[in-house]
């Protein structure tokens, strides 16, 4: 597969000045280099994105996600290394698309579209579509300085997706719109995906990454610590998020001494009935005795998180070697459907992931009554 975005050994170093000499006068009066310290924000980052892939970028605050995306968009230049982009790229970096506050929404649409490389005629032809998508018909002739931040993002997103670039780069902006608009953006992103376009997405929402992305990379202090399937990457991200900042954070789990081997329904199949007890067995191997708590996640078929439950209140003691755990969901209030299950074992304080398995099983839920939706409610009518 030909790669669309190629990030090769990218390094980005910022100069930090304790006291910034921002004028010629200061330079003359205080010659010398000034007291600059260097901050390396990205270090030897390499990965490539293939045509039609959706890549998530995970990492905690300050790990360099936005910096990486800015480099890919060309807003910042890497200090070393090189980034190659094939085709048109539209970026939505943080808030707003660089609108001019004094200009009306209409003028800003034209301005930012032409910054994305669209010809005037093309903008004319898609203008109504942009406005309709942003739902800002009434405000389109108002200067954008009077827009709310949500409106800002809506217009910026509408321009970027309507420009239909080969590569779309999105940095967390989707968190700003209201829920309905977010859903609309998600639809549009999915449509983008089915068109075979390429997307790079920063999100703090691991579930969103899992549901949207085919692959994800994880940044930790400017280094790439994972480049794997979305599920795998989310696991690494969780570990880094939960793990303390020290050495533990840089390991990807090889030295973790707990491994989940397999799961199996007690009755043989992995089928449950609504509002009834469901029991399954899992085989866990530990290299040394350790305390742990069980965590279980269920996702629906759209990739939305339905439930995450942990048993940190009742930790279990694992002994060295193989052991079988019996896990029971006392009551399963889900309507029929197939649910992806992830399970893991964390330390009793919930801070460290000891073992994690993505999509270890699919739980089929059968519901005998009538009803729609996801959750079964028990009604009591007198």
């Amino acid at each position, binding site marked *: 597969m030909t790669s669309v975005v190629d990030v090769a050994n990218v390094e980005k170093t910022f100069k930090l000045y304790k006291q910034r000499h921002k004028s*010629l006068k200061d330079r003359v009066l205080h010659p010398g280099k000034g007291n600059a310290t260097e901050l390396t924000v990205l270090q030897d980052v390499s990965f490539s994105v293939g*045509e039609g892939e959706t890549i998530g970028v995970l990492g905690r605050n300050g790990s360099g996600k936005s910096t990486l995306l800015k480099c890919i968009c060309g*807003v910042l230049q890497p200090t070393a290394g090189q980034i190659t982009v094939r*085709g048109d790229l539209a970026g939505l970096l943080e808030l707003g698309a660089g609108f001019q506050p004094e200009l009306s929404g209409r*003028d800003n649409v034209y301005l930012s579209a032409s*910054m994305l490389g669209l010809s005037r005629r093309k903008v004319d032809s898609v203008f109504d579509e942009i406005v309709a998508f942003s739902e800002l018909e009434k405000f389109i002739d108002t200067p954008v300085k009077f827009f709310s931040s949500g409106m800002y993002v809506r217009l910026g997103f509408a321009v970027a997706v309507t420009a239909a670039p080969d590569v779309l780069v999105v940095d967390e902006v989707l968190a700003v719109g209201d829920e309905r608009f977010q859903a609309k953006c998600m639809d549009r992103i999915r449509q983008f995906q089915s068109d075979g376009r390429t997307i790079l997405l920063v999100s703090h929402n691991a579930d969103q990454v899992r549901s949207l992305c085919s692959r994800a990379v994880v940044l930790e202090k400017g280094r790439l610590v994972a480049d794997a399937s979305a599920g795998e990457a989310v696991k690494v991200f969780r570990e880094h998020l939960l793990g303390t900042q020290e050495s533990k954070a840089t390991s990807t789990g090889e030295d973790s001494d707990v491994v989940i081997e397999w799961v199996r329904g007690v009755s043989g199949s992995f089928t449950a009935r609504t509002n009834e007890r469901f029991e399954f067995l899992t085989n866990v191997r530990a290299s040394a005795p350790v305390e742990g708590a069980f965590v279980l996640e269920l996702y629906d078929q759209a990739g939305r998180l339905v439930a995450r439950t942990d048993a940190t209140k009742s930790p279990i003691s694992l002994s060295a070697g193989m052991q079988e755990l019996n896990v029971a969901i006392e009551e399963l209030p889900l309507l029929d459907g197939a649910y992806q299950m992830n399970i893991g074992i964390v330390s009793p304080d919930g801070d460290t992931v000891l073992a994690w398995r993505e999509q270890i099983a699919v739980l089929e839920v059968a519901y005998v009554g009538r009803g729609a939706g996801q959750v079964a409610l028990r009604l009591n009518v007198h």
Partner: protein
Amino acid sequence: MSPSARRPVEQRPVRVVSAHLSLRQRLAAIWGARELLAYLVSADVKIKYKGSFLGIMWSMVSPAMSIAIYFLVFQVILKNGVPDYVVMLWAGMLAWTLFSTIINTATGIIVQRSGIVKKVAFPREILALSTVGTATVYFFLQFIVLAILMAVMGHAPAWSELWLLPLSFLALLLLASAFGVFLSAANVYFRDTAHLVEVGIFLWFWLTPVVYSYQRTVAPMLGAKGLAWIYLINPITPIVLTFQRVLYGQTSVTATTPDHSAITVLPEWSALHYAALNGLLVAIGLALFFWAIRIFGRLQGNFAEEL
């Protein structure tokens, strides 16, 4: 928007983000963004006079005021005796205002538009060049007003030398763009550049024969010692002289002072001499412009983080 309408990956334009781009790549990128340039200029003009009663005519107020004041000082009070002095004055101011407006506005433009620079990638030179575009719009407006004024006064330009004007205009644009592009980048790193430029432009104005006559003040003083060339190092001087030569149309006139003496207000160079001077300036302007783009290219990599 169907996937089939899209080019295969292999045929798409390749963009390389790296700290080193050649001059050719930079110029190609600028050319590719020309539509954006046009849009920035029209947005600029639109914002500035939006919602004001006189609209774009406000752009005439400041140059008209200075012309009125210089006219009052030099013609009415100091009685320089130049007939139709306002035409002479306006012709020089036309060139000078274009130059100084570009320099003054371009210097601050990157800092002023930091919001865009930090969020969108596009050739940043376009911002500096947009100030050239905007100033040019106002230039043509002032040009039209001068034409009307000359028609009303019945003052004819030197028709046979009119062709010198586009040449001179080109030299002026190239020089101003070169300075503008360079200063806009410098101002990101040294924020007091803008103040220095303001002072510098003020001094430069008085070193350029716009309100006083080169032929009557500079030439006799320096020319006698063979030093007139010092004055002509200032590249704007030949340009201003060309504008005056073409638009004022005469070199020797009869003074309006009571003695009605014959005075020479402009050097009596041939049209070819003017053409050669301006041609040289076009070449210098072009070289400076490329140099400025190179320097800009080296500095622009860190704009987003310096702002």
